[in-house]
């Protein structure tokens, strides 16, 4: 249906993938590239329809490699750009995700995760890519990844992903999964003027790139966007603050590698969001994404029986909320980590919490089916006994 509005104000009953698309468009996305893949296709399908209606461009590429490359290219051309895929597509994109990190490119990558490994089960959601989005490209780097638990958050956090990408000049992941991607629920879209939108800072013209800092500023260098006569030099090879390649100076190599990491770490308090409901709790259920809903339902069951169960939900899984996890660990006796996988974030959580409390892991009763609250509750009872 034809609709030239960027913001579809109102209450909707639609899929998470629909909400993600509308979040992107509300955030000002004007370029998207993608390759068909279950369970992410609905996002690309709708972007193909909606983007041209609001003056944007959608490109169906020959593969996921081309999708991420063209999205990065479009971002350098000044677009708010995104790509959307699932685990196999992320695997293909990894080298160029590193390019986006290294060239400090604002970009949103939506990952509607599915059951792996390999071709696995396309239609079944699983949090299978949590580590690969942070560690899958070669070399040391830091990434931002957000974990929605509902279609509403696929709208809200897609907007936040664009805002963080623009603010910090970084690729940002939205870690959805096939379950909420395909789940319909109420999505409330506010008025356009109620939605906060961030824009990247753009570099000023200079005699030469040597007179300008285009890269490697922990407080985010203005971006020398193409097409404005800024004569930007952009390479993912080791470069200095001006973007000029330098493969011989160890001090430059050091800065090239660590400054983009420091950029994210310096601003971690602004980036990281968690929801802690742990006052008086003996056991904290630590979750992210869809499983968070199971955890809250289980905590409610347990509290009905007088058990002191709290929840800690990581809305941001990268950069890793180490401080927030430590704080809760120091309040509770036990941390039970619930993930819809074999424990991808568990070692990271354990490393932060084990000094202060007992930490254990519980996968779902059947992998791919998010935890049944009763299943969690019976495990809690065992833990207490």
């Amino acid at each position: 249906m034809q609709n030239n509005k960027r913001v579809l104000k109102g209450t909707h009953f639609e899929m998470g993938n629909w909400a993600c698309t509308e979040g992107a468009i509300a955030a000002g996305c004007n370029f998207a590239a993608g390759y068909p893949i279950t369970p992410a296709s609905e996002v690309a399908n709708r972007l193909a329809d909606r983007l041209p209606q609001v003056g944007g461009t959608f490109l169906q590429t020959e593969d996921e490699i081309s999708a991420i490359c063209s999205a990065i290219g479009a971002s350098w051309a000044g677009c708010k750009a995104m790509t959307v895929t699932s685990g196999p597509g992320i695997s293909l994109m990894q080298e160029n995700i590193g390019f986006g990190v290294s060239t400090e490119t604002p970009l949103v990558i939506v990952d509607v995760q599915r059951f792996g490994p390999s071709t696995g089960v396309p239609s079944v959601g699983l949090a299978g890519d949590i580590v690969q989005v942070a560690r899958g490209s070669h070399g040391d780097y830091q990434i931002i990844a957000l974990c929605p638990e509902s279609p509403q958050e696929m709208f809200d956090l897609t907007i936040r992903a664009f805002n963080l990408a623009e603010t910090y000049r970084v690729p940002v992941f939205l870690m959805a999964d096939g379950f909420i991607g395909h789940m319909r629920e109420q999505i409330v879209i506010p008025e356009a003027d109620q939605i906060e939108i961030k824009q990247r800072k753009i570099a000023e013209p200079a005699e030469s790139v040597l007179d300008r800092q285009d890269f490697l500023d922990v407080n985010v260098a203005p971006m020398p966007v193409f097409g404005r006569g800024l004569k930007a030099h952009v390479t993912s090879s080791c470069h200095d603050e001006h973007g000029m390649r330098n493969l011989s100076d160890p001090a430059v190599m050091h800065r090239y590698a660590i400054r983009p990491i420091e950029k994210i770490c310096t601003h971690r308090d602004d980036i990281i969001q968690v929801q802690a409901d742990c006052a008086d709790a003996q056991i904290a259920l630590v979750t992210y994404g869809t499983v968070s809903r199971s955890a809250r339902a289980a905590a409610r069951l347990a509290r009905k029986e007088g058990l002191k169960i709290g929840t800690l939900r990581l809305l941001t899984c990268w950069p890793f909320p180490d401080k927030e996890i430590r704080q809760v660990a120091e309040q509770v006796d036990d941390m039970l980590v619930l993930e819809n996988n074999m424990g991808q974030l568990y070692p990271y959580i354990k490393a932060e919490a084990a000094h202060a409390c007992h930490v254990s892991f519980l996968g779902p009763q059947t992998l791919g089916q998010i935890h049944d609250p009763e299943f969690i509750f019976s495990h809690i009872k065992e833990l207490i006994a």
Partner: protein
Amino acid sequence: MSQTDLTIAGVGGQGSILAGVILGSAAVTYDDKYATQTQAYSSELRGGFAATWVIISDEPIEFPRVTHPDVLVAQAQDSINRFGEMLKPGGILICDSDMVQEVPQTIERQFRVAATSIARNRLQAPVTANMVMLGALCNVTQVVSRTALEKAIAKAVPKGKEQINLEAFNLGFEQVKNM
């Protein structure tokens, strides 16, 4: 907290999933309730299994997966074979009697609606059998109001097909009353 968990199942092409989407949409959009709707289907687009799970509640829904539904709407024998056992004790089964031969004795509250023959013979539109089932579901469970469902149907079906789908819905609704 009032919450109803439903499963609507059939074979691909019968419109079970659309019925679930309309149900959830009616609850959220016109009855000011909360709802979630999920689905599963086999890879073949026609003839394989298809099922949708809908939760309707007066409060925000925490756990969105239906494990033991209060209501099972079965549009095919396969649906009962797959999902019959999961029905909560005392749960309601509404089945299309044209498509279902055997129903487990253990299910006490059963409503049999000849949805396919009503849709075919009275409306010459067998594809509206899902709306007949939705009408029956509405009357039996009152989980969503009749007016909300009518509005949601009119919005969801293809333009020009509103009237025939609403007729199918009303026939299903009345069918239960006359039981």
